[in-house]
């Protein structure tokens, strides 16, 4: 390897190192992620230390929800509402880029024999001939209906 090439390699490595020292590199979720996971894991790189995670539905972070984290990842204790969020991580004066994340509802109905189960991430309104009125099925909840009944589910 020539000296010039070696110099470039060294400079490149130093540049990567410098970037890691002056910013917080985000790992996941990727920018513009769409997910149905209401408790996504936010992960970032950098040295182990104290970080503050900012999550907001406003790109300018006017009213963010914050979490102080000792480490490099965080899973919200409660599921986030459906919608689009922006998130970033800060450590002292050093801040990461801003990423966008969309959490979408999923309406998934499983049926086996005479039972239907809500396998999605939102409460469902169930419509079936044997059910009168609006019946709301919680996440992971099941209800019995006739085996030969038509059933329709929609987000409650």
């Amino acid at each position, binding site marked *: 390897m020539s*000296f010039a090439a*070696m*110099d470039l390699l*060294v*400079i490149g*490595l*130093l540049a990567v*190192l410098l970037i*890691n020292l002056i910013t917080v590199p985000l*790992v996941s979720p990727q920018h513009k992620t769409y997910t*149905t996971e209401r408790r996504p894991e936010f*992960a970032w*790189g*950098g*040295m*182990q230390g104290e*970080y503050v*995670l900012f999550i907001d*539905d*406003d790109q300018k972070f*006017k*009213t963010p*929800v*914050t*979490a*102080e*984290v*000792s*480490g*490099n*990842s965080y*899973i*919200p*204790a*409660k599921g986030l509402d*459906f919608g689009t969020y922006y998130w970033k991580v800060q450590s002292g004066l050093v801040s990461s880029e801003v990423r966008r994340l969309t959490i*979408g*509802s*999923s*309406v*998934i*109905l*499983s*049926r*086996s*024999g005479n039972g*239907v189960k809500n*396998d*999605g991430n*939102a409460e469902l309104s169930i419509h079936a001939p044997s059910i009168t009125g609006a019946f709301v099925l919680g996440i992971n909840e099941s209800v019995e209906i*006739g*085996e*030969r*009944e*038509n*059933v*329709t*589910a*929609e*987000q409650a």
Partner: protein
Amino acid sequence: MSRQSRLNGLALVLALLAMFSAAAVNAAAIGVTPGRTTVDFEPGLEKSVTFTIINNDHKSFNAFVYAEDELKDYITAEKTIVEFRETDDSKPFTYKFKLPEKMEKPGDHWAKIVVMEMPAGAKEGEQVVMATTAVVHQLKVRVPYPGKYAEFDMVVQEAEPGATATFFVKIFNLGTENIYKAFATVDILGPTNEKIATLESEEIAIESKKGGELTIPWKADVNPGTYHAVATVNYDGKVGSVEKNFGVGALRLELLDVKVRNFALGGIAKFEISVENKWNQRVDGVYAEVVMSDQKGDAIASFKSASVDIDPLQRSALYAYWDTQGVAKGTYDAKLILHYAGKTAEKMLKTYVSLESIETEIVGVTAKVITARGAAGPGADILVPLVLILVFINVGWFFYFRRKKK
């Protein structure tokens, strides 16, 4: 769907229904994401919406898609049948809508895009009784209310006792006019509806069809427990409210002490387990389970207490009985498992059994309740030395090659 395509689709379904004979037992799993798309009404608005149909069970089937409800006539789609194979996780489906020039009635208006599961590979000429399973993607069109009108939501960022909880009051301006001044007052109520605190927000302005958010912090200098927040929102002289329960700290019972009185080896040992409810509401159905092990770690006995209900912030005793017939003098390890509110908390006890007494000593805590605090990612602890090593190597290379070059 257009009227023509919808009718064609319905005809196809009826034909399919007439073709199948096996009144097969249904085993289905079908899904859509997102479950809802919301748009604000604009005269003549045209848009394409794509949602995903999920083949949750990875099986072959045909998804029949059609529109229904109030706005169904404004929906069109190029196809009505989507074929799935076992290998397909999901497939996108796109429809278009074109709203009318005018919608008189303010509020929410809906179209429902129904995705119905139909069996794949149905044979012709068979007769049928068939149950269908369907899921719905909703199109919600919000028509603004004349004048000033807002709806509200509240999100609470909970906190540990002594830390700061934050109330986020969201205001959606669903009126045709801008809101120039909106603010909220949040009343925090305790378990007996007593007022604990009243908080005031700042003021914000919100344009028509836009949302705004008020942030109201509160130092939660209260006992752990469930509390109730009532946010009263005032916007340009109009008033509305939103309320929500929220928690401070975690529901937790503390094991205080374990005693055995009036004991004689060979008889029944009565374990008196003292527990304190740290929560501000009654915890029902609390019981303890004790698993005794010998010095080899083999379980020799397991016994449970009756269950009790413990009032908020009160202490109570649980009684569990151990038949010591055939038990030798000596030291035993005991695992005490406290069951409450769907959780378990464990403590290890050192138990010294003699002829006339049993002494217990709490030796440690094995927490099974998972906390939601952030944790270091895998490999985080080797990151610092690794970075430092890289720094030294790189700086070393840099100077070495610099000097060599000269």
